[in-house]
């Protein structure tokens, strides 16, 4: 029983941390109706920038991380300005393809600038674990999970209670309607990308702190996508619930089913959930029901 609870707690924490990356998908969709398939690459570039500004140029992380985040803001702004602004009003197909192109573009750029080698990632969050009763809680993951919850609540408040947030919601609903109501779609898309970039980098800090970073860190994006979809692409809070479900499910599968399936079940589970969500409840748990249907 203690084992089971321990596995569930670990899964919950990991799921919540991946939920943070899922939120970065959601804020971009939520405010500009773009599914950014390249989010994993944005996380990767964020992680490599943090490496450059901390271990690369030997700055303390308190100075390096804000610098890296500022670079992420700059990069996101540049991407919005050069790629996604000309595509405002284009069919979703075109915008999706642009994000696919961005995926290989950023992957190639990261390899050209930083090379393919594996590097240590600075230990920004404390390592080690707290022991509470019979349970062991990894400090890094616990701090990350708490950070996710705080950020999600802040974003929820932003989207639901502030004027700027409501504007973004209008843009997510329909570009043309938003334009005719006098809302700047350009500004909304820019804000969305900056939030997505920063959240991606924060996700990188939590997930990679004290670990290693290589080009394969981009797969974080693919792991977070099922969470975003299960929670619903429009619901920031949904990512928390979905992250918990997927995280616990994955942890359970990796402990109880993987020995019999050579480690497949835990890797396949999120994507199996994703296909089921698309088949039976395409809007996810908490998404808007007005999705395009036949």
């Amino acid at each position, binding site marked *: 029983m203690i084992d089971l609870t321990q596995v569930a707690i670990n899964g919950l924490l990991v799921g919540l941390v991946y939920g943070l990356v899922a939120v970065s998908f959601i804020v971009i969709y939520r405010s500009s109706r773009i599914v950014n398939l390249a989010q994993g690459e944005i996380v990767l570039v964020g992680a490599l920038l943090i490496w450059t500004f901390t271990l690369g140029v030997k700055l303390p992380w308190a100075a390096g991380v804000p610098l890296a985040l500022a670079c992420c803001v700059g990069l996101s702004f540049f991407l919005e300005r050069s790629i996604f602004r000309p595509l405002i009003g284009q069919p979703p197909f075109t915008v999706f393809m642009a994000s696919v192109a961005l995926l290989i573009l950023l992957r190639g750029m990261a390899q050209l600038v930083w*090379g393919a080698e594996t590097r240590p990632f600075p230990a920004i969050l404390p390592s080690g674990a707290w022991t509470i009763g019979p349970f062991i809680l990894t400090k890094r993951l616990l701090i990350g999970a708490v950070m996710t919850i705080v950020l999600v609540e802040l974003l929820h408040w932003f989207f639901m209670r502030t004027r700027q947030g409501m504007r973004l919601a209008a843009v997510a609903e329909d570009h043309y309607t938003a334009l005719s109501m006098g809302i700047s779609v350009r500004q909304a898309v820019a804000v969305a990308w900056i939030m997505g970039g920063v959240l991606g980098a924060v996700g990188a800090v939590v997930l990679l702190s004290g670990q290693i970073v290589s080009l394969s860190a981009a797969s974080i994006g693919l792991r977070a996508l099922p969470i975003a979809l299960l929670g619903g692409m429009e619901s920031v809070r949904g990512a928390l619930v979905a992250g918990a479900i997927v995280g616990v499910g994955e942890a359970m599968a990796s402990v109880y089913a993987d020995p019999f399936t050579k480690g497949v079940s835990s890797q396949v589970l999120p994507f199996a959930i994703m296909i089921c969500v698309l088949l039976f409840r395409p809007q996810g748990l908490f998404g808007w029901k007005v999705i*395009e249907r036949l």
Partner: protein
Amino acid sequence: MLLPTSVRFSTYATEGRYVHTRPQAVWLAGFLLALTILPQVASLYATGVLTVMFITLMAVYGLQVTVGTAGQINVAQSAFMGIGAFTAAKLSGMDVPFWLAIPAAGLAAAVLSIIFALPAIRVKGFYLALTTLAAQVMFPIIVIALPADWLGGPSGMAVEPIAIAGRMLASPADMYYFTLAGVVVCSVCAFNLQRNRFGRALRTVRDNELAAEVTGVNVAYYKVMSFFAGSLFAGVAGAFFAYYIRYVTTENFNLLLSIWYLGMLIVGGLASPLGAILGTVFVTAIQEVFHALGDSLLAAFPNIGGGLVFATSNVILGLCILLALIFEPRGLAHRWGVLKAAYRIWPFPHS
């Protein structure tokens, strides 16, 4: 489309022809003749590049059916190709002749693709792309985890060479001719698919689902069938790839390759198989330029080492897709059409 002068149609059959005039027939024959002679004069390396290009072209034809004609996003074309390749590899190990193994590989990929196309009944747009993404991610995980005597596990599978009338197809030139024959058949299929009932139904689904439904096109059925047809091409391409490379592993069929195929199609133009041809040739040419420049590139970026050509090609292809999307969504095929029209009515101006 602007036709050459003095072309008149009296029946539908004459209008449906691809070759209308004698010069066109001469050009086509000359082109095919040149492709036939090529491996005799070109280097072994060039022959290999062309063979891989033909195989890629088959897969991109399939993508043109799913993405270009039916408007459904598919980011798992290389996984479907992988399914075909592993099927062919398995069948070749069981002494099944190639003329059975290749169609079987196509069918295997097509049938499996239906599972991932089923959400098409409920959702549209990018949601569908996500199920194909799931297919692409799950493919290597599952193939590697299957028992090693099924599909070879992590180390992959060897493929028996093809024997035609007791003669092994071993040399690059042999494989070139074999693939050329395959790509010619695929081209005929891809071009004809555009103008039969099936292709027209797919185009209606792409352009306006409501109108399609009203005119009696079963939208969900044709969406699923667009994946079936597209993956059929992918499976056949995978089988040819397996016979060419003679050893298949899951690393040959990753997400980046799927994106590359999509990129080729977008750069070339989504609307017709001609776009698939132009895009594949264009991207292969870019790749070969970087391959040729490899040494000097290595001198410019010494800290990168292996994978440099791949990285630069990724950047360039990404840029090409973005430029195509922003400035010329109709792709190179449209530019080619404009060029042809301008040539035909010269010296009169053409926009």
